[in-house]
């Protein structure tokens, strides 16, 4: 196993209010490892501690306890940062600059020489769908455009690791799909993508691995197919023929219409029995569809568990 791209151990963060009054335990011991390839989704409801974690990883905040290592080195290490790209949550930029100037400015912080930087800026702005808007001041950008220029600046150093805080927020459905495709493209190039989201549909489509954080603690983590594949919740079986499911275990007729019937079965034994029994009764099986838990269900049940803690 190669070194993880990012490893977070026992991370705690407590915010202390003014005059030390009031404490908010934003992170209560977060552990996770982002492998060096693929897309890692960091999911959780609002206020769970996603942004706080990412800000510690990028060195904007300092942990109260615990440790973050990126490619084996401490967070905030400048050599590591050479290979890091970061998109903050609903990013804010110098609004007196144009899109082009902004990306160029961030590129110059990596010491990318002028000509190369100019070409790369063009390429990146094209890539995030801002062609023709390069010369427009950011003051005139919409929220979605800011998100896009934010992605462009995060990629200006062609980083190995990209950390994106809610990259799809503020975008319309088309924009979301474009960003999803862009992230998938980055994965193909062998990059590590660690992104946070509270929108599960986006995550479910692209993540290889996820961690679910609730109230400052990771409650579920692992490869998506394993987490969801652990339990098939039920099977839908459709057949043509006599609409007689009488005598089949766990039978639950969903529809029955013009000789077609669909029944829902909730155990493997029930499926086995139905599959052997139905043909004997003169029915022809058309389809058997297993339904796994969706990420949403997993998410909601994780939250519930933690709430009841």
């Amino acid at each position, binding site marked *: 196993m190669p070194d993880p791209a990012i490893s977070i151990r026992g991370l705690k963060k407590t*915010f202390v209010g003014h005059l030390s009054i009031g404490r908010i335990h934003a992170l209560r011991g977060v552990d996770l490892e982002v492998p060096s390839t693929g897309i890692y989704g960091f999911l959780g409801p609002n206020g769970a501690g996603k942004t706080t974690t990412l*800000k510690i990883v*990028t*060195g*904007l*905040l*300092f942990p109260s306890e615990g440790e973050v290592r990126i490619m084996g080195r401490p967070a905030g290490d*400048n*050599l590591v*940062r*050479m290979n*890091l790209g*970061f998109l*903050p949550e609903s*990013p*804010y*930029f*110098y609004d*007196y*600059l144009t899109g082009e*100037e902004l990306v160029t*400015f*961030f590129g*110059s*912080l*990596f*010491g990318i020489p002028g000509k190369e930087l100019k070409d790369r800026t063009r390429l990146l702005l094209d890539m995030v769908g801002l062609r023709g808007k390069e010369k427009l001041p950011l003051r005139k950008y919409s929220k979605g455009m800011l998100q896009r220029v*934010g992605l462009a*600046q995060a990629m200006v150093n062609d980083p190995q690791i990209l950390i994106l805080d809610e990259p799809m927020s503020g975008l319309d459905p088309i924009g979301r799909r474009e960003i999803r495709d862009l992230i998938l493209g980055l994965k193909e190039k062998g990059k590590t993508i660690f992104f946070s989201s509270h929108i599960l549909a986006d995550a479910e489509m692209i993540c290889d691995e996820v961690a679910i954080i609730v109230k400052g603690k990771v409650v579920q983590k692992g490869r998506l197919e394993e987490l969801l594949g652990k339990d098939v919740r039920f099977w839908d079986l459709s057949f043509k023929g006599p609409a007689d499911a009488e005598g089949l275990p766990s039978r639950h007729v969903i529809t029955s219409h013009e000789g077609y019937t669909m029944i829902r079965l909730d155990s493997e034994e029930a499926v086995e029995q139905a599959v052997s029994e139905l043909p004997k009764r003169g029915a022809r099986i058309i389809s058997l569809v297993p339904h796994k838990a969706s990420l949403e269900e997993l998410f909601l049940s994780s939250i519930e568990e933690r709430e009841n803690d």
Partner: protein
Amino acid sequence: MTEKLGALSLLQVRAIMKNTFKEAIRSRIFYILMAFAVTMLGFAVVLSFLTLGSQKRVILDLGLAGISFFSVMTSIFVGIGLIYLEVEKKTIYNVLPKPMPRSNFIIGRYFGLMAVLGTNLLAMLAILSVLLAVFKGFTMAVFQAGLFIYMELAIITAIAIFFSSVASPVLSAICTVSFYIIGHTSSTFPDILVPLLRSPFQKKIATWFFHLLPDLNILNTSNLITYDIPIAEGFTLRALLYTGVFVSLLLLAACLCFRKRDLV
């Protein structure tokens, strides 16, 4: 690789300076303050007609005073937001995760504003020179005085950026303005306040304390310039040294305070 990061630091500071410069010249407040300063120069000319003394002298004195005042205003009011607003507006979230120490950001911001103030100052001194030339009173002392104004700006800006890295703009403004006032009056404290104390011990302590206060009057050349007294080279060097040490210490303090700050 470490050397490479060292060379990179220079590029980064330069990039941040350049960006700070752009920010200023694309903002409205900069032009408002400029307009005030130019109005002030026009006002100096008008007043010079109404006074009995030498017209050139009045334009020179009032002109320099006005330039100094508005430069200090720019320094304070841009300076106090230099770091604070970047955090407040969250624009800093994109900058600091880049491969550089936080101190590069502070230093780049500082010298960026100093570049703005320098350009601004040169423009105003040029206008003043033209006005003086019209009244056949141009003197190189204008630019000598300019150097001293610039040194004062260097100190005030360093104070402002120090407060900006730890406090809100209102608090920073109060502290920086207080500093400015104390800086200009502290040299009179020993003469005025010490005689009010009774015991010699108290007097000694007070005198020491007053010596520790910043003294901006050592950068004040207006009397020398008004009365055409040449400024000694040693005097200029001492002032440069004082400014250099003061600014370095303040920037160091700002960087140290900012190094481990949580940017929430």
